């Protein structure tokens, strides 16, 4: 009782503080346009059919999901006003918002939800099976009620119903057509805060305020323009000159981001990636020597200086990862650092040396073994990281040869043929470990047909059992126990090297206010965002 009272008090204090800052900064003034630069230009702008990052950045302004999430990743209302999970966890009832209309004026109903989730997102979205897999049918007792029927209890379901993961698209436009070739795919009609206006290929996409948006008085902005500029230096110059208001992560080199940050009128927009919880890792080939040996994998985990990698290669945009499940999901209780092997100890290099001795790789002429590292072909920063890793592993006698390859040959060798020793990559952990983290270490994800799964070929029956138990467990506390066990087991076994929790920060002009107000950040609806005049 006392505890809840205290938390209530602190919540109201925060709310009060927020109200004070909001009023002292001047109320959100409506109007204005912001220009966002992102890269690459998306191929399509309907994210029900694609999981490409830039597709999502655009589509989340145009479409809504059933739910949104607060900063602790708890569900909050969106198109669904309220919901109820049945006691056995086998059905979820959503009460939909009334009076919502599509951008073309047609009323939004439960039929749209049934159609979108079951026929489009579950079938066509690359993460649809993960988010909605156990949903067997959807009932629509009336226009404003939907009931999702599940094969088994599935807690992750309630974390994957945002406009980013499961957007609701209009049935009256898509039903009975070839979805991918429907012309609405690139002239989308949604229920979201902004309407699509035009797309000048190779140049920009313009979105305009939805006057009939169901959130009263929102959005504040008149329009949002997404500009596509091929060169990173030009994007940085655009931000510097004020031509561009927001540059998403990856559009400007980290070193340039640090330079721009020091200029007047430009700052780093921290946050807004909690819901996708990105983690960078090294994949080790667990199916062949030397990384089929746990001692060697642990030695690598000890030998790497994560903080140095973060500071030099990534200019501080991240923090060392403890294990596969990141602190981003700490709010749900899935994260733990209790009983986890700590690889960042002071005598880590000595330990690494001992482990390698024990594994049968004694030091001969300053060298124990040679391996090949394929840095991810995602840009020069990844190559720099390869160079640092080469030096750091060289210190414990692991000689690393770097091999740079183009994207298609990289994916073929590493993710289809599993012909590699060590490779770098990153994954989005999503709001629930079952959705994002599981695929890297669950043995059922060893599939050469599907890249970026369990490419390291790691098989551990106990790990499989825990992942599978977490999929169907209805009790959140019990699931979190499973995740904590997984965390301990995986970090101890070290099949992959988790390097850092990535901060996918954006760079913004200071005239843009309230850019990051949700765990989706720029991948949210931006209906709270406004500009100072």
């Amino acid at each position: 009782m006392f505890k809840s009272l205290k938390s209530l008090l602190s919540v109201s204090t925060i709310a009060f503080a927020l109200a004070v800052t909001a009023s002292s900064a001047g109320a959100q003034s409506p109007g204005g346009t912001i220009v966002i630069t992102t890269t690459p230009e998306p191929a399509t702008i309907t994210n029900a059919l694609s999981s490409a990052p830039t597709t999502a950045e655009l589509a989340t302004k145009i479409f809504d999901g059933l739910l949104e999430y607060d900063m602790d990743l708890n569900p909050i209302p969106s198109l669904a006003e309220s919901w109820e999970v049945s006691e056995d966890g086998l059905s979820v009832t959503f009460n939909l918002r009334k009076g919502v209309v599509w951008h073309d004026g047609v009323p939004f109903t439960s039929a749209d939800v049934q159609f979108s989730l079951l026929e489009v997102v579950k079938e066509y979205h690359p993460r649809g099976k993960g988010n909605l897999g156990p949903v067997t049918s959807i009932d629509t007792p009336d226009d404003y009620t939907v009931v999702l029927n599940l094969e088994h209890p599935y807690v992750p379901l309630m974390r994957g119903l945002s406009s980013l993961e499961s957007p609701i698209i209009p049935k009256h436009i898509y039903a009975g057509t070839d979805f991918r070739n429907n012309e609405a795919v690139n002239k989308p009609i949604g229920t979201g805060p902004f309407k699509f206006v035009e797309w000048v290929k190779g140049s920009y996409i313009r979105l305009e305020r939805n006057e009939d948006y169901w959130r009263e008085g929102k959005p504040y902005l008149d329009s949002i323009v997404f500009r596509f500029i091929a060169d990173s230096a030009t994007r940085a110059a655009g931000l510097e000159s004020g031509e561009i208001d927001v540059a998403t992560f990856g559009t400007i080199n980290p070193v340039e981001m640090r330079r721009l940050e020091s200029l007047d009128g430009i700052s780093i927009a921290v946050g807004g990636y909690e819901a996708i919880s990105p983690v960078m890792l090294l994949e080790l080939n667990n199916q062949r020597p030397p990384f089929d040996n746990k001692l060697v994998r642990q030695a690598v985990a000890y030998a790497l200086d994560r903080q140095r990698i973060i500071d030099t290669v990534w200019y501080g945009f991240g923090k060392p990862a403890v294990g596969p499940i990141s602190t981003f999901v700490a709010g749900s209780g899935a994260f733990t650092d209790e009983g986890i092997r700590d690889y960042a100890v002071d005598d880590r290099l000595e330990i690494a040396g001992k482990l390698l001795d024990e594994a049968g790789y004694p030091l001969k002429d300053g060298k124990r073994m040679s391996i090949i590292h394929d840095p991810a072909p995602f840009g020069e920063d990844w190559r720099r990281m390869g160079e640092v890793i080469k030096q750091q592993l060289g210190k414990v006698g692991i000689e690393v040869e770097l091999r740079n390859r183009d994207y298609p040959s990289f994916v073929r060798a590493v993710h289809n043929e599993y012909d590699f020793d060590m490779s770098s990559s990153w994954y989005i952990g999503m709001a629930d470990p079952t959705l994002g983290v599981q695929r890297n270490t669950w043995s059922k994800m060893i599939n050469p047909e599907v890249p970026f799964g369990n490419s390291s070929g790691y098989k551990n029956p106990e790990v499989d059992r825990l992942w599978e138990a977490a999929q169907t467990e209805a009790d959140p506390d019990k699931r979190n126990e499973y995740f904590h066990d997984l965390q301990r087991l995986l970090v101890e076994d070290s099949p992959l090297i988790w390097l850092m929790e990535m901060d996918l920060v954006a760079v913004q002009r200071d005239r843009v206010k309230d850019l990051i107000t949700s765990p989706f950040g720029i991948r949210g609806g931006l209906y709270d965002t406004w500009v100072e005049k």
Partner: protein
Amino acid sequence: MLSNSAKPTLLRKILSTPTGAIGMALLTTVILLALFASVLFPEGPFEMVGAPFRPPFGEYLFGTDMLGRDIAAGIAYGARISLLVGAVATLVIVLLGTVVGGLAGYYGGWIDTAAMRVTEFFQTIPTFIGAIVIVAVLGPTLPNIIGAIAVVSWAPLARLVRAEVRSVKGREFVEACLSLGMGDMRILVVQILPNVLSTIVVAGSLMVATAILFEAGLSFLGLGDPNIMTWGFMIGAGRSAIRTAWWMVTIPGIAVLLTVLAINLIGDALNEALNPRAKR
């Protein structure tokens, strides 16, 4: 031509011109740097020796790069690669060019026609793009890079040698050799080649500079061998930080500039020494 007694005179001739002297001085510095790289910087060019982004002329002569690597070490080890690529690629180009050009020029007829069509084929490919394609397909390793540079650069030399051989072949002393019953190969190697050598040496010396630039260009584009420190690699890596740290790009850039300049100066001096009539 380059007999023992002629060697000192040739060197003296080169050194007597101001361009030659400057060129030789610069090149000697680069060679010494390459030779003593591992003595000067025993920890190697990839070792992160200090804090990143240290400006030059402080704790480190040329500063450190974005990872804290000593740029001076990179320059010294990069000199090795530049010189190695320049020398080996030129050797391959000269060998290929001389063999193809010599045979085509000497025999004429269908051999000439066939050889010239092949060289034309190679000449129609834009050289740098050709090198990029070869390295991209075969993979970025040092032998592949040297091979790619040689493959795209030998054709002009072959045509040059062919033209020279043809003009020498028409001279009386060659006819005299023929009438004495000398074999084709002997005439070509012993009689004609020495008379063409000065042209080959001058053209070859300039090829060294081109090869170094090619290698730097390929590394700059990320097509260098990632396990080897080169000047082009340093420029390419430092490019993204150019607004924050000018020295990461500028210093290796100056190294490329001075080396290529030195070789061109020596080439000019060689040309004057070996073909005095050609210029005046």
